[in-house]
């Protein structure tokens, strides 16, 4: 691990001031915020990330770890731990897709440590990114190429990729959130702003070392999930190489508002499949107003994988994703919502 200097932030204002050299999720930013540390400390030990300064946000955990549910929706403090949100009774009853996405992620130890804000910003598990002995990685060494394109790319993304990077977004929680059109509260040097989660992560755009649209010094302080008639009938289906404690090779977040067999509203997020958290509004629109038959589910699944680009080892992914989407739609259809 490379040397760094260290400061604790005792308030959001402190964090914003001390974190002025953070921003855009730049892998080579000189300053990093430390929250749960489950991604950052790991990547620092691998020397993939070598910040010269850490701003420890852990003193803020108590103050910004509230969960509240009302008619407007669900509000989660950014410093709520994954485990805390996963066990919250109302999150489970009214937003099951969120609770499930958290319970099916990582391990109990990591869920206790990781904050929700940090979870959204977790970095890819691409082995060419995580191992500095590989010379080519545009995400780690801008302009150096991509070793994954012609390498072992079984777990690489097929949606939202370009010629610069096919790294997969590894998270589950953000997939559930994007399906529910979550909004984020950000605080930075220019004050507070509310943005859609869908606008947080960047496309590779030839600059995959820049991962998000956070301004220098800006941090996520809250997550808001709008209420909707679809949130209670929702589920997260995750397909993995082993049964637990593993990243998705395909996942689907589904929320449905049904009127008998007819879809009033459908929401669909895809995980284990894309460069960033992925929502398929085209598939949602295809489902809207239709009778939810197996045939319609398969049409939606095909629509969701439109434009997928594969690189050999990951040729299996689009079909696995389609079947995962159908399975998730079936599971959501057969739910008996509690709320």
């Amino acid at each position, binding site marked *: 691990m490379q040397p760094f200097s260290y400061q604790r932030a005792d308030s959001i204002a402190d964090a914003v001031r001390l974190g002025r050299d953070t921003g855009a999720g730049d892998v080579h930013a000189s300053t990093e915020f430390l929250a749960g*540390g*489950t991604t950052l400390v*790991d990547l620092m030990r691998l020397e993939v990330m070598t910040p010269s300064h850490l701003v420890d946000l852990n*003193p803020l955990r108590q103050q910004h770890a509230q969960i509240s549910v009302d008619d407007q929706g669900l509000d989660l403090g950014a410093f709520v731990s994954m485990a805390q949100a996963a066990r919250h009774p109302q999150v489970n009853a009214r937003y099951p897709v969120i609770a499930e996405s958290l319970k099916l992620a990582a391990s*109990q130890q990591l869920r206790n*440590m990781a904050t929700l804000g940090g979870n959204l910003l977790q970095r890819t598990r691409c082995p060419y990114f995580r191992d500095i002995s590989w010379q080519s990685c545009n995400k780690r060494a801008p302009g150096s190429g991509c070793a994954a394109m012609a390498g072992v790319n079984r777990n690489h993304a097929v949606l939202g990729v370009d010629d610069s990077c096919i790294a997969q977004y590894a998270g589950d929680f953000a997939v559930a959130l994007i399906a529910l059109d979550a909004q984020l509260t950000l605080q930075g040097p220019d004050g507070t702003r509310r943005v859609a989660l869908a606008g947080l992560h960047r496309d590779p755009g030839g600059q995959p070392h820049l991962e998000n649209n956070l301004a220098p010094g800006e941090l996520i302080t809250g997550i808001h999930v709008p209420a909707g008639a679809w949130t209670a009938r929702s589920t997260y289906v995750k397909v993995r190489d082993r049964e637990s404690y593993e990243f998705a090779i395909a996942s689907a977040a589904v929320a449905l508002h049904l009127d008998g067999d007819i879809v009033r509203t459908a929401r669909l997020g895809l995980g284990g499949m894309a460069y960033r958290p992925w929502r398929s509004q085209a598939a949602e629109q295809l489902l809207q107003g239709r009778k939810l038959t197996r045939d319609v589910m398969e049409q939606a699944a095909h629509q969701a994988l439109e434009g997928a680009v594969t690189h050999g080892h990951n040729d299996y992914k689009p079909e696995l994703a389609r079947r995962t989407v159908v399975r998730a739609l079936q599971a959501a259809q057969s739910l008996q919502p509690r709320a």
Partner: protein
Amino acid sequence: MTLTRRELIAGTAAGIGATTLLRSAGTAAAAPASVDAARAAAVPVTTTLNINGRDLRVTHDIRTSLLDALREHLSLTGTKKGCDHGQCGACTVHIDGRTALSCLTLAVAARGHSITTIEGLAAAPGRLHPVQQAFIDKDGFQCGYCTPGQIMSSVACIKEGFADDAASIREFMSGNLCRCAAYPNIVAAIEQARPQGGA
């Protein structure tokens, strides 16, 4: 008088503790952002860690993990280093009563929290926690290397109410890998300890 290995290590730890007390207390927070990182890192920091109910001062490199602080500075070697990347669970401790990975926790960031290690689990020296006894009774290990981490997670599994059935136990325990594959016996040990093992 014969010394057990544990007593010998405990004695060494006391010696180290006394040494660290003599060091100056350069606190991490005193380092301004403008200080060159390499220079900042060359200055040892002193952190007070609350471990097993005692406040212990550790003087360490800013980069030191909680795991290395426990093992290398405090000679609390019950907590094991497996992968050092948060993938195996051998380094599991309790922080404020919840399981956490000491390898991915910076020692400097652990100050102000209550840390329990495998050494702090039993009610008194020379006694075993019910979960420790259950691992012996049910043969819940072979080589034993992952066992302290397994036991720390097992206690939390029972305390947090995830020990009702084998499937729930396996899911809760999935962050603790066992290369010897003692998994069925670990589940049996948790089931045995369930009535009294969450304390």
